[in-house]
């Protein structure tokens, strides 16, 4: 078991008073709180902070910890002195089951693995799993198989579980689906936890998602924009033809009804945004034609600067 330096975790001196400890905790908690923080290891960091604060903010626990600290050093293997009686504490703080083995050994059964959890009958924990979906998948009614692992609170072992679920129509990126009672099993008579499936759309090589609408950037030749054209564009359900009106502008949006993502009822639209693409290579004849146009045209693209 590794010795934990709770003072170091909170970045305070071992002589810091309760007020300084509280301030340090609050400042770091704001920074690493998993609901606020975008830091990669926020959750682990926050657990460490909570554990350190739990001990150092309580006069009795802190005194005991200080006494033990004389025996151990951070990062080193640590065994409590033989006469140390870990069982003397009754401890049931919120979230304490996530605390480290080190905490459990000093302050009794609250931390670590199954010891604490087995003691009380409690509702099983919720489990959240992410399901990546291709945009094409959201249009299908095929049930999808999802595999996840649930820890069994009685044995501490992870068990694999498979479920077949139908993705509800009109599901949005980031939306959660709740499967009642499919989370971690409970202890005793309490209810099992729930399973939350968080939908995450995989980025698409062609389409961007805006709510239930899709956006497609459509490259067109300058003469297609000028003269109009009938072109073929992709949709999630295959190719369709699209009329580019004559005298179109770059950035112009053309709406294709009903070719977006599914809604609860009906379907969103596809917005084709025109991008006028210039050629990379020019033949002699091409250049001659552009020169002809340049001589003849009165178009001034910077007219608005001259006002």
């Amino acid at each position, binding site marked *: 078991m590794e010795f934990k330096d709770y003072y170091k975790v909170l970045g305070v001196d071992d002589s810091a008073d309760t007020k300084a400890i509280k301030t340090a905790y609050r400042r770091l*908690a704001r920074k690493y709180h998993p609901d606020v923080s975008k830091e990669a290891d926020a959750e682990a960091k926050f657990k460490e902070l909570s554990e350190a604060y739990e001990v150092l903010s309580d006069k009795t626990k802190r005194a005991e910890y200080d006494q033990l600290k004389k025996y151990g050093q951070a990062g080193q293997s640590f065994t409590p002195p033989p006469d140390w009686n870990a069982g003397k504490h009754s401890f049931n703080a*919120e979230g304490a089951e996530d605390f480290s083995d080190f905490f459990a050994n000093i302050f009794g059964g609250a931390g670590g693995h199954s010891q604490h959890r087995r003691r009380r009958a409690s509702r099983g924990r919720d489990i959240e799993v992410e399901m990546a979906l291709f945009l094409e998948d959201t249009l299908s009614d095929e049930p999808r198989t999802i595999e996840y692992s649930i820890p069994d609170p009685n044995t501490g072992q992870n068990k694999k579980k498979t479920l077949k679920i*139908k993705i509800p129509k009109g599901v949005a990126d980031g939306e*959660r689906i*709740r499967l009642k009672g499919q989370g971690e099993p409970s202890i005793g008579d309490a209810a099992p936890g729930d399973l*939350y499936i968080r939908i995450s759309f995989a980025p698409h090589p062609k389409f*961007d998602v805006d709510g239930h609408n899709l*956006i497609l*950037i459509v490259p067109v030749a300058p003469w297609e924009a000028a003269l109009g054209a009938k072109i073929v564009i992709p949709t999630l359900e295959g190719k369709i033809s699209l009329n580019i009106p004559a005298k179109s502008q770059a950035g112009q949006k053309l709406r294709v009804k009903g070719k977006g993502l599914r809604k609860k009822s009906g379907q969103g639209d596809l917005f084709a945004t025109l991008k006028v693409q210039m050629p990379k290579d020019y033949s002699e004849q091409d250049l001659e034609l552009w020169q002809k146009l340049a001589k003849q045209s009165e178009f001034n693209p910077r007219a608005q600067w001259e006002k």
Partner: protein
Amino acid sequence: MQIDYSISIDLTSTCEATGLETTELIEIVSHGIIEPEGSCPEEWVFDIDMLATAKRAIRLQRDLHLDWAAVGLAIDLIQERDKLADENAILRAQLQRLMQE
């Protein structure tokens, strides 16, 4: 196997699902942090997103020692930030598509 998608959830089930006390959930609703349908607690109907927001609210309240008004503000700002990040991601993706040859 029968799967219960549970889209509309009443007060009791919401408390069960989130581990919140009824009084805590009432605080959260009275601060407008989540807005269930229905005019009184017995009639309230919650959805899945509200469950997630309620859980986030209680975590912030407990872990950061915030009062409910501050929790409401924090959640508004977090949601605003997430919305802007999403919008930014869409705009970036589109800009890249417009710039590439």
